[in-house]
């Protein structure tokens, strides 16, 4: 029996009221209902805003769901047609490759820079806390604001990056960062790295803080300092935080739409289309909701694969 129950049963008889027994019974019943009511709004929200969309998307992806559906209410079942249409589209492979490059490039960049910064801030110096907190700013701004700022910096003719590169004599002609199919993907990866650094820094820093100081003291006695200490003490102890940082990073990056739309709208010549932007395009530009749903389901499937890999990896760790 739990403490809570012991307490209530113990106090009931001492209550002054004479008709305590039925009241208590009614109270207990009411209490069980009240407990459930605490959860009901959230449960309904999650069912309506996550459960329903997932099921609805699955259904839509097997239907010919277009603008006409809104007019006549008809969305005929078409089997796998939507999936066939999106997968055989010439853009699909490109979008898939772009998604992979965008995700890998962003994650590697964010993680390495975030890790170096976390190690740096793990040292003790004046103003450490304030400066580290200010690093969070890019992450808290609306993504579209970040896109706007970088649009100004990367602008081909008068943007400060090209102006600086030309003044320093590093390049002869301005680089068309966002307007050339050859460099646009690199440019959006760089911007996304900038946006992801705060998240990686914060998680990895808190992971470093949780490593007990005496491990380093003991290591120092055995001659493990500097890089040796990093490889033999920091890295193994940071394993759990590193894997969750990477997993969340991958899941967040796969679904990025805002930044790409703000910077390039998927262009030039589809050089920055990903599965996520394609899904948006099909549904909300071409109004082929069935195909958009098929693409977004493929996106969920990819995220799911990563989540399963992560779960298996962490479980193996626990078993060890």
């Amino acid at each position: 029996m739990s403490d809570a129950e012991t307490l209530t049963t113990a106090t009931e008889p001492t209550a002054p009221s004479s008709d305590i027994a039925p009241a208590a019974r009614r109270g207990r019943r009411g209490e069980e209902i009240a407990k459930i009511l605490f959860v009901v709004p959230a449960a309904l929200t999650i069912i309506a805003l996550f459960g329903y969309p997932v099921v609805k998307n699955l259904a839509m992806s097997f239907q010919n769901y277009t603008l006409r559906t809104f007019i006549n209410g008809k969305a005929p079942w078409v089997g796998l047609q939507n999936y066939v249409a999106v997968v055989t589209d010439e853009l699909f492979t490109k979008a898939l490759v772009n998604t992979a490059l965008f995700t890998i490039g962003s994650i590697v960049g964010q993680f390495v820079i975030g890790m170096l910064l976390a190690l740096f801030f793990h040292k003790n110096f004046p103003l450490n806390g304030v400066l580290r907190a200010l690093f969070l700013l890019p992450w808290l701004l609306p993504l579209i604001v970040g896109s706007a700022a970088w649009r100004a910096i990367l602008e081909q003719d008068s943007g400060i990056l090209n102006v600086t590169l030309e003044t320093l004599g590093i390049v002869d002609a301005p680089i068309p960062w966002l307007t050339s199919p050859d460099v646009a993907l690199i440019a959006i990866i760089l911007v996304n790295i900038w946006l992801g650094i705060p998240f990686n820094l914060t998680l990895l820093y808190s992971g470093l803080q949780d490593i007990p100081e005496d491990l380093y003291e003991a290591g120092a006695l055995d001659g493990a300092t500097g890089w040796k200490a990093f490889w033999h003490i920091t890295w193994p102890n940071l394993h759990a935080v590193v894997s969750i940082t990477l997993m969340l990073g991958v899941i967040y990056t796969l679904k990025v739409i805002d930044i790409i739309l703000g910077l390039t709208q998927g262009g030039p010549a589809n050089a920055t289309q990903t599965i996520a932007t394609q899904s948006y395009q099909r549904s909300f530009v071409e109004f082929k909701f069935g195909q958009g749903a098929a693409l977004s389901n493929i996106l969920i499937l990819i995220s799911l694969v990563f989540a399963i890999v992560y779960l298996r990896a962490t479980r193996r760790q626990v078993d060890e």
Partner: protein
Amino acid sequence: MATHQQRPAAHQTRRRLRTGIAIVLLALMLFPIYWMLNISLQPSGGTLPSSFFPPHPSLAGYNTAIQDQGQNLVTSMLIAVGTVVLTLLIATPCAYALAQFRFRWINWALLAILISQMIPGIVIANALYTLYENIGLLNSIPGLIIANAAHAVPFGILIMRSFMLAVPTSIVEAARVDGAGLVRAFLSIVVPISRNSLITVGLFAFLWAWGDFLFALTLTTPGNITPVTLGIYTYLGAHISNWSAVMATAMLASIPAIILLVIAQKYIAAGATGGAVK
């Protein structure tokens, strides 16, 4: 003797040097935001200025921004505040229940909440568009508030639950013994004690709803409800003829994040790590 005095001195220098390096790194990181401010204060047309300080600071860009986007800023504010209220109303009781009541299915509920955070926004937008079309919530502030709460509720439950796990059952029980009902004990004891986690969740709900672009883009049609993020996107989409107005709007849209980061640093830091690690 000499070495004893030298070592702390060298140590001091090294610490100051680190602060210096940190400031340089921070300046690099925040350069895009400074640049936005710089351009917003320089009257400019389609060509961007390249001086590092505005030679003749002007608020002309802000004038245009407020004329074009003032209404949109108000819309965004209404959506953000609405999202905070709705998120806290829904998530707080649930967080408490999952932390303190002994339901048998708690692990399943937590798993469902974790998975829900993985669902891409575009999936929600796809389904909500068709739903909203039917029930008349397209192009409405309540429609956008509900969609934004989708993002914040699961996060809010996880953050507040991990905080409420630490609320000692004994103080709630003491209130119950004094005759307080479940709801009253929750409102008068648990909520005040967990205030910090409510603030953290409220802050993030506000910032997410304020910065939301995907729902604003998909659940409205042009010319109706326009949150400021959508306003900036419209500015950016066309050929940009007035950079200072675009950057001024972007600066105005950054103000909530800047203010909250300065005055509520510890709550932000709590949310940044809490959602992922705990």
